[in-house]
């Protein structure tokens, strides 16, 4: 399956057939069976150099697991992750360290990502020490201060400890630390979910500024579709471990085709009481990953489900307008 929409640009990160299962029940007695939960079922996408790439979905859709597999926090069950044509899975030692330097991460909880007992400036330049040794200590400090200023903070903040900063300031510090190695790619897993609305905008604007100035490639994982629309050039929508739709910003948000994407976008409240949309509230809840529905995993909640949907699992297909979607109803459309 070809996953590239725009072949003009350089591929940077290519994820192929990624699957991940977790052991949820050990074998305690010889007659018992091990039990697994399948969190990712064959994920394919390619992130191009310089783009902002979004990964959205509700809880349990696998977006964070995908990110964690790319970040090497989990190892994939099967599948490959290529970064500039180097296979990342199974990479060890020096090679791993060298490549990992180019990919940096920002998580949801900045307090957990920072050491509470070390002044933030030291934490910002710590990656330099890890990768280049202690030699250029003075330069490191200067570079860290520059970065701290570029994320909108002052040199004085550097001497503070994480608990003395607000949530938004901590997330800025984490961003500065991620940028100090001059990475080519930044992975942000729900970076603003824990922040207040007024602070979210500050961090998002900062992310956009960094992208503009450094041309960095961004993988942005979020449950907040409005923010993804605002930030990302192309977006993958996931549901229960599968990609259901994948398209560029205008195509996806102006004209979503997959019934899940449609209802998801429709469920997001608009802060303008004059706008009345048709009410397409999805019924039911996301089924348990332990007992996934047969066929298309979305069919029990799907407003346009056909009898076939409970039997056959749809594949991610490229539609005439260039988008990808996994839906039997849309496949029918392609044929006719």
């Amino acid at each position, binding site marked *: 399956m070809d996953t590239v929409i725009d072949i003009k640009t350089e591929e940077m990160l290519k994820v192929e057939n990624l699957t991940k299962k977790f052991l949820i029940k050990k074998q305690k007695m010889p007659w018992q069976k091990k039990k697994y939960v399948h969190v990712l079922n064959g994920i394919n996408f390619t992130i191009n150099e310089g783009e902002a790439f979004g990964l959205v979905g509700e809880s349990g859709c696998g977006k964070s697991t995908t990110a964690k597999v790319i970040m090497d926090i989990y190892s994939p069950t099967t599948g490959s992750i290529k970064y500039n044509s180097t296979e990342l899975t199974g990479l060890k030692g020096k090679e791993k360290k060298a490549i990992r330097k180019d990919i940096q991460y920002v998580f949801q909880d900045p307090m957990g990502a920072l050491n509470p007992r070390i002044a933030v400036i030291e934490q910002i330049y710590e990656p330099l020490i890890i990768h280049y040794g202690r030699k250029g200590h003075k330069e490191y400090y200067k570079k860290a201060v520059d970065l701290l200023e570029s994320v909108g903070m002052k040199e004085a903040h550097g001497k503070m400890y994480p608990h003395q900063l607000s949530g938004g300031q901590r997330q800025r510090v984490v961003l500065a630390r991620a940028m100090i190695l001059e990475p080519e790619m930044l992975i942000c897993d729900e970076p603003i979910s824990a922040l207040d609305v007024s602070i979210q905008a500050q961090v998002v604007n900062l992310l956009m500024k960094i992208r503009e100035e450094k041309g960095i490639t961004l993988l942005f994982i979020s449950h907040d579709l409005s923010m993804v629309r605002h930030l990302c050039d192309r977006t993958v929508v996931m549901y229960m471990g599968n990609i259901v739709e994948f398209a560029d910003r205008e195509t996806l948000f102006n004209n979503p085709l997959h019934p899940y994407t449609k209802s998801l976008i429709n*469920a*997001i409240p608009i802060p303008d009481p004059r706008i009345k949309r048709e009410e397409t509230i999805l019924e039911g809840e996301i089924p348990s990953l332990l007992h996934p529905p047969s066929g298309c995993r979305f069919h029990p909640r799907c407003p346009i489900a056909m009898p076939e949907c409970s039997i056959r699992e749809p594949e991610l297909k490229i539609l005439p307008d260039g988008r990808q979607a996994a839906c039997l109803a849309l496949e029918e459309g392609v044929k006719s």
Partner: protein
Amino acid sequence: MSTDQNDELLLEIKNLSVGFNGSHKGMPVVRGINLEVRTGEILGIVGESGSGKSVTCFSIIRLLGERGWTEGEVLFDGENLLESSENEIVSVRGKEIAMIFQDAQSSLNPVQSVGRQLVEALELRKDLANNSSVDYKNEAVKLLGEVGIPDPERRMKEFPHQLSGGQNQRVMIAIMLAGNPRLLIADEPTTALDVTIQAQILRLLKKLRKERNMTIILVTHDLGVVAETCDRAAVMYGGRIMEYGPVEEVLVSPRHPYTFGLLSSKPRIDKRSEKLYTIEGVVPSPEKLPKGCPFSERCLYVVGSCRDNSPPLTNEGSRHYFCFNPIEEGTIWTQ
């Protein structure tokens, strides 16, 4: 604040201040607010963390207990709930005013079945207790059905950890409906839920208002939720109300720079945005609030008097705001 004549007042908050004993040197986190709730409406209280929106709601039915202090009046049926006796407030809770919370799962007793917790609430009803033919279990199943729990009889025997977040919130709503209250306070009821489930819960709240003529106070940080659910909205910041009025006015043409900032700093799902408006700075803690308008330090429209004087109330039809330099009608955020 003046009211429109035809609407019947259900709850009136007068000059309410609330603080915690011990933390922040007893500084108030809610500072002299006035608010009216009318029968049958859904009133949204909007604000970020630390705005005092949840604390206001907790103090209405005195859930802060000995951890907090209150001043002012909360009038319900003409009676000041802040001064009523312990027995009186217990008889108001659940039967007149009920409340649901953000994290439904931890708000339910983990070791009691859903049915048991629901029946317990029903048993507090005096009208049912006098009726010997009443079957509490049956009533509980009916309530679970009303809040949209599929297969309610089976769910009765289950425990909170076996249900999803959305279902637990439905159970919470059912428990609070058991006493047939006139006012339901919903404190961020959908914040922890996925958007498709949030839409279901909000639809349920609207249904309850319509079918039971229930009055609802909906606390949220999401202006979208307010726009789609509420009739009127009060925007809070730093323990004060900034702006207050019909949703069509407050959200369409906000007068207060804070409301304006909140609206423009969040991207919208139906529009393309280039750059987000930012409210600079951080939310100040209660002891660091400026003397005048709590928002003055972060406000782009700040004028001389803002920092030292509390802005007076301005009434403009059915809408009210506290600001020296309000935003002109029709202003929109452009990059």
